[in-house]
């Protein structure tokens, strides 16, 4: 009897669940890639993606534009992700968006509900009649129904690097990101080629800041003149105190490409300069195309990044408890996976969520794992139940109720789903 009583003692199991599975957001007859997801202070959710419409196929320009000739769409949910409104097109001119999974357009929500968007755009340099890549900005002040005429925020330089930047661009201001701070300021960052030469193949980090909600931007400003990985997208987020944390891969003279986070104060001064996030040195003379995801909660900063320098390459998670001044040694999120890559990170009051795409057997799936705010893993790796198909390129955001929501691409369409705010403990009584 005692035995049965013992057996009947409740056992706490840690389970995760995927909540509120939705139908794909993007139309069935279009190719949709490179999702991003954001939330504004109204609690509205925006999911944005790059659309390769069938009618855009073909080289319209007569130039080699790095083979990206795409549109940008946003779908808004005003009910916490249960339903999404009809997607709205962001760019005004067809096909001007230079977007792909490794250089995806970015969206952020502001305190006043405005949606702010940055993307790299195809232009033809007016003086050279050659393609150039520039960073563009637009916003929606009516809840994602219409978007301002996009405008260039990067300087279109007169240098002609078309023989050097393969794809024939005279210059490039791409791999951009955007973040919105509590003080209302907007910060755009991009990798700029203006100092590139046959002798200097790394990029520069440039920024443009708006302090009036995106109505105007200051002239672009150089943060780092060189040593920025020219093909690794930037990521950025802001602290409660309106500090900006921007991640990049720093290229050393001997070819190491380390994932770093730089902290910039509201006055524009760098407080923590390219702090290594704790991955093993990765020396590669190539195109990693690997961004560093970053999220912040008070003094805790979390990163997730693909590292090729480890004995077992894959996604590595690291945390800082001193605001990004230093990071703990990064740890693998998905040990023994065949592939783990393309991570995203989000944080709520108690947990950080890392999601990525990986392969264990069969095609790519989206996986996730949670960590406490000290950076310790909580529970095991979980797979998002997304049905058959190749699932990849997840992005995550934290909702006002603490739940996480992710979006990802799967077989040419964009999906979104809620995840729990923390590991769910379920008490199971054995009878």
């Amino acid at each position, binding site marked *: 009897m005692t035995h049965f009583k013992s057996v009947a003692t409740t056992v706490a199991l840690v389970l995760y669940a995927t909540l509120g599975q939705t139908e794909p957001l993007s139309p069935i007859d279009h190719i949709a890639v490179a999702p991003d997801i954001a939330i504004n202070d109204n609690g509205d959710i925006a999911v944005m993606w790059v659309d390769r419409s069938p009618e855009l196929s073909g080289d319209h320009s007569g130039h*080699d534009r790095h*083979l*990206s000739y795409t549109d940008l769409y946003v779908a808004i949910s005003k009910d916490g992700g249960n339903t999404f409104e009809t997607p709205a097109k962001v760019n005004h001119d067809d096909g001007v968006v230079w977007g792909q999974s490794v250089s995806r357009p970015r969206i952020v929500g502001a305190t006043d509900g405005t949606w702010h968007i940055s993307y790299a755009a195809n232009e033809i340099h007016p003086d050279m009649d050659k393609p150039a890549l520039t960073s563009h900005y637009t916003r929606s002040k009516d809840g994602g129904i219409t978007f301002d005429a996009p405008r260039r925020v990067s300087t279109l330089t007169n240098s002609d690097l078309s023989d050097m930047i393969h794809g024939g661009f005279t210059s490039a201001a791409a791999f951009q990101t955007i973040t919105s701070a509590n003080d209302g300021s907007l910060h755009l960052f991009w990798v700029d080629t203006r100092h590139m030469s046959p002798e200097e193949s790394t990029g520069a980090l440039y920024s443009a800041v708006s302090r009036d909600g995106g109505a105007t931007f200051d002239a672009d400003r150089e943060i780092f003149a060189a040593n920025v990985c020219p093909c690794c997208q930037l990521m950025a987020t802001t602290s409660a105190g309106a500090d900006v944390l921007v991640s990049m891969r720093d290229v050393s003279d001997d070819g190491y490409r380390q994932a770093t986070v730089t902290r910039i104060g509201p006055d524009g001064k760098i407080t923590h300069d390219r702090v290594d996030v704790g991955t093993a040195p990765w020396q590669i*003379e190539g*195109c990693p*195309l690997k961004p560093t995801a970053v999220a912040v909660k008070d003094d805790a900063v979390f990163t997730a990044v*693909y590292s090729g320098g480890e004995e077992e390459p894959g996604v590595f998670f690291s945390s800082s408890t001193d605001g990004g001044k230093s990071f703990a040694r990064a740890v693998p999120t998905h040990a023994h996976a065949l592939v783990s890559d393309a991570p995203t990170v989000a944080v709520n009051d108690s947990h950080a969520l890392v999601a990525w795409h990986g*392969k264990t057997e069969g095609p790519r799936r989206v996986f996730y794992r949670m960590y406490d705010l000290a950076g310790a893993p909580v529970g095991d790796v979980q797979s998002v139940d997304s049905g058959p198909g190749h699932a990849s390129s997840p992005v995550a955001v934290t909702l006002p109720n603490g739940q996480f929501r992710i979006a990802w691409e799967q077989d040419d369409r964009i999906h979104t789903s809620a995840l729990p705010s923390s590991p769910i403990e379920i008490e199971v009584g054995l009878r």
Partner: protein
Amino acid sequence: MGAHLIRYLATAVLSGTVALFCVAGLASASEPVRQISPDDFEAILSEQQGNIVILNLWATWCAPCLVEIPDLLKVEADLKDHDVTLIGVSVDEPVFSTDHITRMRDKRFPDFLTYARDNRDTDYLVTVVDPAWNEVVPTTYIIDRAGAVHTRIQGKKSLEEFKAAVLAAIE
């Protein structure tokens, strides 16, 4: 019975297609770059069994890739007597035609035998050789005479490094 027959016929048709492909042999470096499927890729590689294959994943936008391809061509030429074949696969986006890849190939290294992927998912094609590929370019595989990957090399390397890797596979 019917299902078996259909499967048999499908296999026969597929085999015939592969056989035709094999009869046709490798594409010529002077022809426009052709997009290939995983099945095509498997057929191309299986035709090379008995040879040492240098398989190079590259892209038109990858500067280090473009720098190392001439070195790979030289390795192939220097070790021709050892049945070494260089095969490229461009991982450029397969959105439009392959004209831009052909233009780049013809302009910079006209002797480079290369194919392009026919699917938006890069991983789809490379999985044939390496299910754990991390989507970094350049990536070069040295494939031994039995068709197995002997060495995976990532990032641009020197001519000497490539030659040493191929010689190790020959031995």
